[in-house]
């Protein structure tokens, strides 16, 4: 027996897909600029710059909506990491992804109304959304107005540091997206999670719901 749980309200879905589209444009234009050259098959540099700048500005606005939305709606609690028993829960999830899933074991932390993210997802999402994204925004806006960047500080070239931080942040988000796209195929069917993020409903499989081990591990 299974039922549908409404997990993703419209604002989260709209934000999620807007975020996804903007990130894709930013990644493509970013890589194009990074590997630009007279003979490189990249997007024309000035076009790539405009694509990157416009998408970056819209992404900042989208992030503000995400940040405020999380505070107002309570969705932000999904990103709060419980440090008690953290290591044990992480290992449980890593074990599941690397071995358990092949043995047809049930996910140790199934998605439900009370818990949208498994421990690994929670940590990754929190680090990406609350560390790397702000890094990208701060450095990105600084690069839009390079005059505000200090020329040199403690022997470090300010422009170089800002540029490298932006590139590292951008790479980490791109890397996350790659892994995220794959892990999103690990539902009951490969498209289950993708559909959920379109319809807002998640299939609540009975055998997963209230998994006793997960509940116990959650409270350890």
């Amino acid at each position, binding site marked *: 027996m299974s039922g549908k749980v409404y997990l993703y309200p419209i604002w989260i879905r709209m934000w999620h897909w807007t975020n996804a589209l903007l990130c894709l444009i930013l990644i493509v234009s970013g890589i194009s600029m*990074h590997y630009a050259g007279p003979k490189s098959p990249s997007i024309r540099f000035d076009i790539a710059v405009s694509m990157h700048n416009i998408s970056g500005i819209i992404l900042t606005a989208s992030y503000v909506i995400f940040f405020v939305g999380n505070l107002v709606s309570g969705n932000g609690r999904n990103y709060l990491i419980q440090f008690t028993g953290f290591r044990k829960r992480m290992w449980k999830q890593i074990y599941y992804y690397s071995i358990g899933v092949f043995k047809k074991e049930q996910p140790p932390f199934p998605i439900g109304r009370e818990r949208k993210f498994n421990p690994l997802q929670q940590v990754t999402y929190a680090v990406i959304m609350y560390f790397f994204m702000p890094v990208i925004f701060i450095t990105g806006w600084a690069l839009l107005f390079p005059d505000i960047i200090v020329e040199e500080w403690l022997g470090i070239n300010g422009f170089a540091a800002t540029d490298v931080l932006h590139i590292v942040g951008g790479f980490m988000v791109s890397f996350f997206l790659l892994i995220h796209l794959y892990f999103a195929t690990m539902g009951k069917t490969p498209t289950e999670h993708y559909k959920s993020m379109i319809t807002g409903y998640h299939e609540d499989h009975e055998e997963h719901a209230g998994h006793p081990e997960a509940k116990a591990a959650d409270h350890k």
Partner: protein
Amino acid sequence: MKIRFFILLALLPISVSLRSQDSIPKIESNPDNNFCLSCHGNRWYTYWNSDSTQQIQHKMFKDLVIDSIEFYQNNHKTFACTDCHSSEYNNLPHKSDLKLEQMPACMDCHDDSEFKPGLNFKTISDEFDKSVHATRENSKTNCWSCHNPHSYRITTRSEHNLKEVVAYDNSICLECHSGMGKFDLLYGDPKSNLLAKHQWLPDPVKHFKSARCIECHTEIREDMLVAHNIRPKEEAVKTCAACHSADSRLKHTLYKYQLQQQREEKGVFSTIVSGRVLAVGTNPSPILNLISLLMVAMAFGGIIIHSLIRIFKK
């Protein structure tokens, strides 16, 4: 003092930095020049007219005024005036026919291969001869048009901050090309509104502050530190990726001297490891690139293996 923001590596504190005031250079004068500069170092000069037995004051023609502060910072600061000008100038009043004296040309001294051969003055001269400054019809341009012998100081081959190098070198071009100066007088062809002509550049002012005119308006030669073959405007570089790329044109022009110095002092490897950021999108660190490509390759490898096992175990 300017307050600017800086993003620090790990914790991202926004700190305040105070720009240090430019240090005042120590100026050493040449006493041999005091006599000349007593008149030519001022906008007004006085002399005793023995016929009228009066002290006469005249305004010095502006092209004959020598800024002694600039002079004693320029490349020829150790020179006596009479090293280039006739020693008869030591007599007053100056003879009128001295105005017709044949002035030495730069290459009279600089053509000597014994004179700092690394500076390639012969090549500079040859390149200049090919440039639009020399080939343009009725050209009146010579070395001194850009390198004022009384004030020009070398900046590229020095420890100067690159922004100062850019500002100083661009000021030389702007002296004629700003549309307010010699260019109009020489050619009656006003080149006003330089900014309008460069509107195609994103943030032209930022570009003017960060790169020299010659970065885009010259033909680069690897054996020259500063290109002198100024090309006609139709041949100017207008491809962004020429500078904003891994093999940035700036490495062969503006940053060339610093990169050469870095290679000599710290070895080739240091330039590969620390690869400087030259402009946005210039692929700053080969090491970071390698790490990122390895991470992506590993991720793809992991995903493929994981998927295959999932499919196999289905």
